[in-house]
């Protein structure tokens, strides 16, 4: 008990002299909060960043998982925290989706945040069982010929994957049946088992089967061909011109971060992202490591919110 008392003494002093504390940022442990369960993509990326940033900043960086409501519980929590630089949030593409999908949120998706940097960006891939469809064009043709005959499995209602599927239907005019599953793995299992005809998900979910020749990867959702998979045509160049869906991971913090703190954190993030090991790990998770400025990230999010709002309106998906 005495030990604990002594350990908190510096903290007590630090709290009593805030001006001094700011100059020596950081002087205690920081945390990266995310809104998804342990072991997911968000959690893993958080831990990769946390591990390296603690070394660069000289203070431990812990990862806190506060799952719920598609990440909005965590977002609401972080938006209400002090903008002192000690609380960051790992944001994902779902942040923009949530902004469009939820009727009321306990936070402002853009105004309540100081955006720091993107970490990685990744597209979605379209996969079907090997040999069933020659190309994405063949699949869309089949869907147009017989509306409602092609079944797309997705990883959950309101997920980016689901909305991408809806967008595909809207852009091509084809009518699909969208079937929700609990996560990409379950949707992939359904594809393997013959229950659905197509899945749209990240490379991580699809790669194992694609490499083994169980799946044919028919298309990718980014506007340009994805560097890691140069043989996969884009939807943009084949069946849906202008199609450009990219999801991302990024770091943000509550709005109102002091300039020097924001600069320190951004610099550290860029430093970590430049490390070869980190780039390899992020690439292994299926993303393309790519840093950005806070302004670029904000622009990206605002753009995506507009796109998803339109998809949800047109496809008449129920808002929450």
């Amino acid at each position, binding site marked *: *008990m005495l030990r*604990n008392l002594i*350990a908190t003494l510096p*903290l007590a002093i630090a709290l009593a002299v805030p001006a001094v504390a700011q100059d020596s940022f950081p002087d205690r*442990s920081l*945390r990266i909060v995310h809104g998804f369960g342990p072991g997911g993509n968000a959690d893993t990326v958080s831990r990769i960043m946390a591990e390296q940033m603690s070394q660069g900043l000289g203070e431990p960086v*812990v*990862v806190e998982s506060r799952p719920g409501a598609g990440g909005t519980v965590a977002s609401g929590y972080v938006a209400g925290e002090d903008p002192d630089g*000690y609380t960051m949030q790992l944001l994902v593409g779902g942040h923009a989706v949530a902004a469009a999908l939820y009727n009321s949120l306990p936070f402002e998706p853009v105004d309540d945040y100081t955006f720091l940097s993107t970490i990685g960006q990744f597209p979605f891939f379209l996969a079907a069982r090997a040999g069933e469809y020659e190309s994405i064009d063949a699949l869309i043709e089949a869907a147009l010929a017989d509306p409602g005959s092609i079944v797309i499995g997705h990883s959950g209602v309101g997920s980016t994957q689901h909305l991408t599927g809806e967008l595909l239907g809207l852009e091509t005019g084809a009518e699909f049946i969208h079937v929700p599953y609990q996560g990409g793995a379950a949707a992939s299992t359904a594809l393997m088992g013959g229950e659905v005809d197509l899945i749209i998900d990240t490379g991580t979910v699809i790669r194992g089967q694609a490499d083994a020749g169980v799946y044919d990867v028919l298309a990718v959702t980014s506007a340009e061909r994805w560097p890691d998979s140069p043989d996969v045509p884009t939807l943009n160049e084949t069946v849906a011109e202008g199609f450009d869906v990219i999801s991302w991971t990024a770091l943000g913090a509550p709005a109102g971060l002091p300039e020097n703190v924001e600069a320190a954190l951004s610099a550290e993030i860029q430093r970590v992202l430049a490390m070869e090991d980190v780039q390899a790990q992020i690439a292994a998770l299926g993303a393309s490591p790519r840093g950005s400025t806070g302004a670029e990230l904000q622009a990206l999010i605002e753009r995506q919110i507009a796109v998803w709002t339109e998809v949800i309106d047109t496809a008449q998906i129920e808002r929450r």
Partner: protein
Amino acid sequence: MQTQDQARTSIVHRATSGAVLLFIGLGMLAIGWDYPIGRLTQMGPGFIPRAIAVMICVIAVAIIIVDIADAGMDKAGGIQWRGLIFVSAAMLIFAVLVDLAGLVPAMFLAVVVSMLADKAASPATILLYAVLATGAGWLLFLVTLELPIPAFWR
């Protein structure tokens, strides 16, 4: 006369379990009333909640009937309020403190409050155990397992 009184209170007692269940079923029905039902082959989100609520109500009535008919039923055990109150207080204090003040204060006060449920515990014993338990908890959760919970307030 006495047996009649006994029988009357007993009926109310006996019907309690079923009544509570009925209350739950009706509550479910009320809350879920607006959820879209759909059809059997195209179930909306409200179909199963309503079906289950109805089934609960039916079974609740059945339980009430069976219980009232069973004249020899034992009376329900009495509620030990002391234990209930102090355990609840301990957990609530933990819940309030852990995000605000950190793990160590939360653990310490939770142990103290929960030990108060024991009428015969002396303040010295309580304090000693609280310190020991908190120390052990700190060792286990924060040192060994390194849970991402702050030891003290941020």
